[in-house]
């Protein structure tokens, strides 16, 4: 939608390692300036402007806040749009995925809440490892392929985390 770079909006240099607390502080400062509540009695045009600015600010914040989305965004900034769906050539990770999925199914069948908590902790560790690996290679053009692979792994882990949450919800019934 023709918005400037998300990092620029927060006056940051594009990079993967971000101080999330600081990002949140900055987000709140910026939101104060452009939120439609400040324009409740302003002209229609100004209200629309505030709505658009707020929406792009929120979008930027959401993107930068999530490691997977931030990673994807950085790669897109560097080398053009990435297709959402691709056939992934990552046999090693494919094995890992299948293993996790099986575990999730077992947890579902056994309705093991403690097991789910432990599973979640392991996913978190895996996520942090991925973040570190991505931070080390995304900026290197020679490692682009590896960076994309890592980014897709991050996306998968996000999805899996979401599925765990859904499982928790189902078991809560």
């Amino acid at each position, binding site marked *: 939608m023709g918005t400037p770079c998300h990092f620029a909006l927060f006056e940051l240099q594009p990079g993967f390692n971000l101080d999330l607390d600081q990002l949140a502080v900055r987000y709140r400062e910026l939101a104060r300036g452009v*939120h439609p509540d*400040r324009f*409740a009695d302003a002209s229609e045009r100004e209200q629309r402007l505030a709505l658009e600015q707020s929406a792009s600010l929120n979008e930027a914040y959401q993107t930068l806040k999530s490691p997977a989305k931030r990673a994807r965004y950085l790669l897109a900034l560097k080398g053009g749009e990435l297709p959402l769906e691709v056939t992934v050539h990552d046999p090693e990770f494919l094995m890992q995925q299948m293993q996790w999925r099986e575990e999730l199914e077992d947890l579902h069948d056994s309705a093991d809440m403690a097991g789910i908590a432990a599973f979640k902790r392991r996913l978190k560790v895996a996520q942090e490892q991925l973040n570190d690996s991505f931070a080390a290679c995304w900026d290197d053009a020679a490692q682009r392929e590896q960076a994309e692979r890592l980014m897709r792994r991050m996306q998968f882990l996000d999805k899996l985390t979401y599925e765990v949450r859904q499982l928790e919800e189902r078991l809560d019934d």
Partner: protein
Amino acid sequence: MALLQIAEPGQSPQPHQRRLAVGIDLGTTNSLVAALRSGLSEPLADANGNVILPSAVRYHADRVEVGESARLAASSDPFNTVLSVKRLMGRGLSDVKQLGEQLPYRFVGGESHMPFIDTVQGPKSPVEVSAEILKVLRERAEKTLGGELVGAVITVPAYFDDAQRQATKDAAKLAGLNVLRLLNEPTAAAVAYGLDQSAEGVVAIYDLGGGTFDISILRLTGGVFEVLATGGDSALGGDDFDHAIASWMVAQAGLSADLDPGTQRTLLQAACAAKEALTDASSVAVAFGDWQAELTREAFDAMIEPMVARSLKACRRAVRDANIEIEDVQAVVMVGGSTRVPRVREAVAEMFGREPLTDIDPDQVVAIGAAIQADTLAGNKRDGGELLLLDVIPLSLGLETMGGLMEKVIPRNTTIPVARAQDFTTYKDGQTAMMIHVLQGERELISDCRSLARFELRGIPPMVAGAAKIRVTFQVDADGLLSVSARELGSGVEANIQVKPSYGLTDGEIAKMLKDSFQYASDDKVARVLREHQVDAQRLIEAVQAALEVDGERLLDAEERMVIELRMQELSELLKGTDGYAIEQQTKRLSQVTDAFAARRMDLTVKAALSGRNLNEIEE
């Protein structure tokens, strides 16, 4: 206008001219209006000193009765007396039938599939019924505050969907109220508490009203209220407790299940009284006709346990959605009259591991918070700095895709305002039109989601299947209301709609109701409109003058400044007369020529917000 005022943090141009604004809690059982008076937010009372207005509307042939007296007539005149109308807002006839046999009204279908209640004054939509309640509150406020209202903040359950929100806004419009913002009830409650205690940290707001249950998790940081997650059940409330007792009475007394509406009302009133008595007493005597029995609190607790459990489940889900652990919640606020039930308090305390806060009257806390926000939105600056409320959408928004599936475009708990686009393509050669079906809900099958609207994008140039690129953009504003546009990117063909929910009123219906409303029939309206234009014009002039003083030199060249001053001069001249239309037009003109100036000042503010704290990093 507000934009032009950004850089003058001091006082408003004319501090003595306080703009009157109120917060309204339009509740299922009771409604309230509150306002800021000498720095304190408080509910406004009627002539008899009552702050609570029962949300009951009784239609007589020649007049409308609202409040306690109407509520008392519910048993004797069930068809013409509407209670708990909030449960019908934004609902279709079929939804309403699902709500149960409990509703004694005679329904007739309207042009918009909204259920109309057949009364002695003819069919009335839930929107009109709600508007009657709002009118009474508006009049009360104008009388108490001694002037016309600039606007109102009206609260809605956080869990209200688009249709329910739109219906609420329509009701306000019908009541002659300018809606400054629809505010989620839990957020309003947080504001009421947050200001008093200048709290920081994560809070949970547990709001059990007459007909709805809401749970919200918020993070409070220096005057910013960020909703992390919200959830609930738009058909769970204290009314259900009454129904549980009533069903028990029916079973115990051996009554037949299909009672006439009047008896049913009497029964429910007895049930409600028993529930309230059990807040302090451990048992209560209940009677119906010749039948008598004792209801213990233990038995009552057991009856409502499934409902309490449902509310706790929603709490757990909200905590998960907020990506926090239950231990992270530092305070729990109780809202809504139904949180007086001891079992409810106990269960909530158990779950969060801490005693919930009940310092502010749970019936009043929402209106009190809404009034604080209304005052800010009306442009009255507060000493303690402005608050900022960052709310979320409660339910995911999406589109129907092939195979009757819902594809989410904006997931629930996304901060608003938000705009998001999704691209689609044609699936047939030569296809020139595409149906866009907008949905709200969490389930995968569209039949399990709420249909918000359907519209068609026509005039797509014929191409082979898959060649057209159709971008559908969703935009949700700060009230949580959705508008959708679709555009074929190659040809630029476009279609827009402000989503008018399938169960909302059509624009035609609203226009007719407004015309019919006697409030608008009198000359009063002309005078009122003129005054509004005068006030708007005056405010704009003051704002522009103040802005010119601060930033005129550095942001405008001589010619731009001259044009602005000329338009301002013309507007000042017109203000001496009484031509409302001319004033309105000239105000628009002045607003237009200051647009670029306003935009530059907005950029400056954004930069100013960034400077200071992070200079080191910007300069590397």
